[in-house]
């Protein structure tokens, strides 16, 4: 049941739990317990809203930053990753295979704010060897959701 609960919640975390139970053909109490257990186990880490900020008057800048770092003795990449992800403006930090080590996704209000973070905070960390900052110009799809266009139902109204 967990897999199916997660599949539904991942797409719609606001679903009514009674309705979720109906969809899964399960008892509501079982669904509630299962979700509570997954929250306790850290499987479900949070419930967020996917926002297309471009449609608001709020300015946001998102940057992907490739970071090369020196791993620390005994701790690998974890301690330097932590020093980075503790900053609230950092949205995500991933350890990456390939040409660099950490992928940092940063959200700021302005270009200048992001630049300031990179030059003053990120690059200033001792373990950080280099950074390459990519600004996001347009989001087409985010979290599995196509942002650009919504399609109308083009099917005929009645078909055999």
């Amino acid at each position: 049941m967990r897999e199916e609960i997660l599949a539904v919640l991942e797409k719609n975390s606001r679903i009514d739990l009674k309705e979720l139970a109906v969809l899964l053909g399960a008892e509501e109490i079982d669904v509630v317990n299962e979700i509570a257990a997954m929250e306790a186990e850290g499987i479900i880490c949070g419930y967020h809203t996917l926002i297309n900020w471009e449609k608001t008057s709020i300015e946001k800048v998102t940057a992907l930053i490739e970071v090369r770092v020196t791993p620390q003795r005994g701790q690998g990449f974890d301690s330097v990753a932590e020093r980075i992800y503790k900053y609230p403006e950092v949205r995500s930090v991933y350890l990456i295979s390939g040409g660099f080590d950490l992928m940092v996704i940063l959200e700021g209000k302005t270009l200048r704010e992001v630049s300031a973070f990179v030059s003053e905070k990120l690059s200033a960390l001792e373990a950080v060897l280099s950074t390459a900052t990519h600004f996001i110009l347009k989001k087409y799809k985010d979290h599995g959701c196509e942002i650009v266009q919504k399609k109308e139902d083009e099917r005929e109204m009645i078909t055999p």
Partner: protein
Amino acid sequence: MKNLLSDVVVNIKPSGIRKFFDIVSEMNDPEVVSLGVGEPDFDTPWHIRDEGIYSLERGRTFYTSNSGLMDLRKEICSYLSRKQGISYDPAHEVLITVGGSEAIDIGLRALVNPGDEILIPQPSYVSYEPCAVLAGAKPVIINLKAENEFRLTARELEEAVTEKTKVLILPYPNNPTGAIMERKDLEAVAEVVLRHDIVVMSDEIYGELTYKGEHVSIASLPGMKERTILINGFSKAYAMTGWRLGYACGPADIVRQMTKIHQFAIMCAPTTSQYAAVEALKNGDDDIAQMRTAYNQRRRYLLNAFREMGLECFEPYGAFYVFPCIRQFGMTSDEFATRFLEEEKVAVVPGTAFGDSGEGFLRISYAYSLKDLKIAIGRLERFVKKLREEKK
């Protein structure tokens, strides 16, 4: 010009679906929500579309062989062997058609002689009866019953068989009822079929959409492959209705004759669609699983909603339709559907569009997002309440 038209064609009555379609189109009201479609709401999965596009880019724009691409026929055989445990010879026992619909048409034409009887269980898809008539056969309707969950029983079959019976059409999983036939049901039917030497046309276009165990094909039962035309296609399983691609598998003798008609009438199924279909069969299992999960959730949602509003409905385990009973309101299916459309602006199809035995029922499709279903169900609830008030 005196007798301009063919009497046979003129005498075929237009589909009940068409009538309703016309009413809805005339209303042309953006407020109307429809639960009336018989095709998936999903887009064809991208990797399948991409393969179609790629085939065009590569200039694969020619006819294929009459029977269809050998690669596709091989993939179909491997699919049927994997899923149903039936082994077909791709060279002689498979024909790629323009949708399952063409397979129904040419299959019947290849089988019957004037006066032969074709048994058609109803409610069922609207094409069987006219295709039987056009083939020069006599359609014999078997009226299925709600108390049997619209399954075909051996007894009903036995009662309909005469010495002229040639073909039994077996439309499961069923449009419009959502009924399925499980192995035990099929075994009982197969026994009668074998005893009376009948050919089965098994329309399994919804075979991938079952919600209670895996679909069983009657062709997989002992002695049945030799007397069954198995029809399937890509429309429902892979959300490929517009690609118009289906297939028929059966004994080489029958397929050879079907291929003859197909060759003269159609030449070959669309080439682009055939290349896309190869990809669908090779890498489409996950897509089917995902769509099936979504359909199943909607199915449960609808059944629960009907239960809550006191609308009687047997639990259908196949296709993407539910078939609730509206007899308690003392109206015909047509009256109910017409008023529901006019007063609440929801389009559903009256059960009678699929045969007289659909009287008292509605076909409701759940090939819609949950969001759309909720809007429609809200209106249905209001309508049902209103009808109950009126009756008081």
